[in-house]
């Protein structure tokens, strides 16, 4: 077991190495001269040359690559020229608001999604089951940026109930914070909720048809105990996998959601960075997001191994 876990952790190293390499290649391929962008259109040729030396852009590409690797290993993700601050520091400031909506949305999605999925599975082919599953399919197909705009239009423009944008301030009371969170979270939790409902339903259906559950029922164990103690536990592995994937896609969804609601998180910052050609910021944030993904995948696999010992990572599994 320990060996398998260690092996899985070691597998991350080449992936991370490739991630850093990709990030380097991608950001170097962005057209334009970073030194020129940094200094503005009025800069003289000498200034630009001096800046290129300072940024190490005069070096051959392979030397730049090695330097970049070294910097990343030392935890230096570069400095944003737009904010004039180290990228990691900026990420540190912005990650709070992003986690605030992604985690809230994910928890709401998990509770409602799994609940609905279980209900549907236990009442298979009932009217509720059909309605929930049609809704879930619509949810999975939802372009969330459109949903966000429709929510703004309905709740903020038409009804004037909820604020359109921003994060609110705890100084104005708890409601100010919550009211600013409602629409972004609603927008962000749609896809995960629908996905949880679908996966929980199918996983539960498989489990409650199994012999072990029939045996438990035959022994006269209460229905509640059969469902919540035994069936749910056995239905968990696929839900855990999806949880990891959804956490990762919530981070991605935050890029779009934050953009609609002007939420001051990582998503708005990276879109700003791209629009202003802030190379270092783009490079640092892409790398950061990719690393978060690698770590989330690792954790999902490890948790999966612990709760489902049948999984083997030996041999040629994909």
């Amino acid at each position, binding site marked *: 077991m320990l060996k398998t876990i260690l092996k899985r952790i070691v597998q991350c190293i*080449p*992936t991370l*190495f*490739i*991630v850093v*390499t*990709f990030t380097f290649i*991608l*950001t170097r*391929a*962005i*057209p334009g001269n970073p030194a020129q962008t940094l200094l503005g259109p009025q800069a003289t040729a000498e200034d630009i040359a001096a800046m290129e030396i300072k940024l190490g852009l005069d070096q051959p590409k392979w030397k730049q690559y090695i330097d970049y690797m070294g910097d990343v290993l030392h935890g230096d993700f570069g400095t944003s020229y737009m904010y004039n601050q180290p990228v990691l520091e900026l990420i540190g400031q912005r990650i709070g608001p992003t986690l605030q909506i992604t985690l809230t949305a994910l928890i709401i999605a998990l509770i409602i999604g799994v609940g609905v999925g279980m209900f549907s599975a236990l009442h298979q082919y009932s009217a509720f089951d059909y309605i929930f599953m049609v809704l879930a*399919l*619509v949810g*999975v*197909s*939802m*372009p969330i*940026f*459109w*949903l966000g*705009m*429709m929510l*703004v*239009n309905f709740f903020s*423009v038409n009804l004037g109930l909820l604020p359109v944008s921003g994060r609110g301030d705890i100084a104005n009371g708890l409601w100010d914070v919550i009211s600013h969170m409602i629409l972004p979270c609603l927008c962000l939790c749609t896809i995960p909720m629908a996905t949880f409902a*679908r996966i929980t*339903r*199918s996983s539960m259906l498989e489990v409650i048809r199994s012999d072990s559950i029939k045996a438990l029922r035959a022994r006269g164990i209460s229905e509640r105990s059969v469902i919540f103690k035994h069936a749910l536990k056995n239905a968990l592995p696929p839900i855990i996998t999806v949880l990891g994937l959804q956490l*990762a*896609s919530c*981070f*991605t969804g935050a*890029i*779009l959601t934050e*953009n*609609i609601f002007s939420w001051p998180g990582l998503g708005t910052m*990276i*879109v700003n960075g*791209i*629009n202003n*050609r802030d190379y270092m910021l*783009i490079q640092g944030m*892409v790398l950061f*997001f*990719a*690393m978060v*993904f*690698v770590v989330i*995948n690792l954790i999902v696999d490890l948790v999966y191994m612990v709760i489902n010992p049948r999984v083997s990572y030996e041999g*040629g599994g*994909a």
Partner: protein
Amino acid sequence: MKKKQNMGEAITDALGTASNEELLKKERRANSAWSKLKRNKTAMVGLIIVCIMIFIAVFAPLLAPYDPTAISPLEAYARPGENGHILGCDHIGRDLLSRIIYGSRVSLLVAFGGTVVAGIIGVLLGLIAGYFGGIVDSIIMRIMDGMLSFPYILLAMVLMTVLGSSIFNVILAVGIGNIPSFARVVRGEVHIIKNEEYCNAARVIGVSNARMLFTHILPNTISPLIVYATLGIAGAIISEAALSFLGLGISEPTASWGSILQTGKFYLNTAPHIATYSGIFILITVLGFNLLGDGVRDVLDPKMKK
């Protein structure tokens, strides 16, 4: 005893041939993928939606009531139904319905194109990795893992920054992000198929690697690929819309569902119908592809039945 058995066979034979064959044919027909799909109601709804959207895209010039780029400042922000504009007009008086109809061309082109790009490259890499195994497999799959580690939309955003915005580049950006998933699906399949009896037989006869890969292995990976591609198109439509929405995809004056939505974002207060209707088209189309994909999966791969 033996005689009796022979007699029994003779009787079924005499009774059988004609009606038996008829029965067998009927059963075969009922079991074919198409008739299974026909019996799956939700899949048929999906197929109908997809067909309608493709029809709209192909015959856009005949269906659109107005020129999608014709500006008419007097009719700016016209509400749905005003002056004969069924879905109203946008901020510079262009007919919204015509723009959405023409936009379906770009959106579907990007979605199909992106999926084809991802499919071709992904399938090739998956075939090679799965078939040859060893160091080749490790290298290809580690690179795929690395690519999968980038959040899809972020990778597409950076690619658009690198490539510059044009329809072709959006196809590339949407496609490149999807390569790893195709490669993984195919590699997994190849792993199973290459050890099947018929592959061993082919190997014994001395079939070349290329022939082995393309005539014996590839056709047997088709079912999961069709499922994957159908669902992939749904994702690609959303990706195009998301990129355009962020201002990195299709840009004005070309109409795509995403670029109309982006315009709608700016005029949400004054003309909410712009965003509303273009989004509904995206939602319905994506829903159609998802329904169809789910249905095809149920038919082609009963093991994965949800």
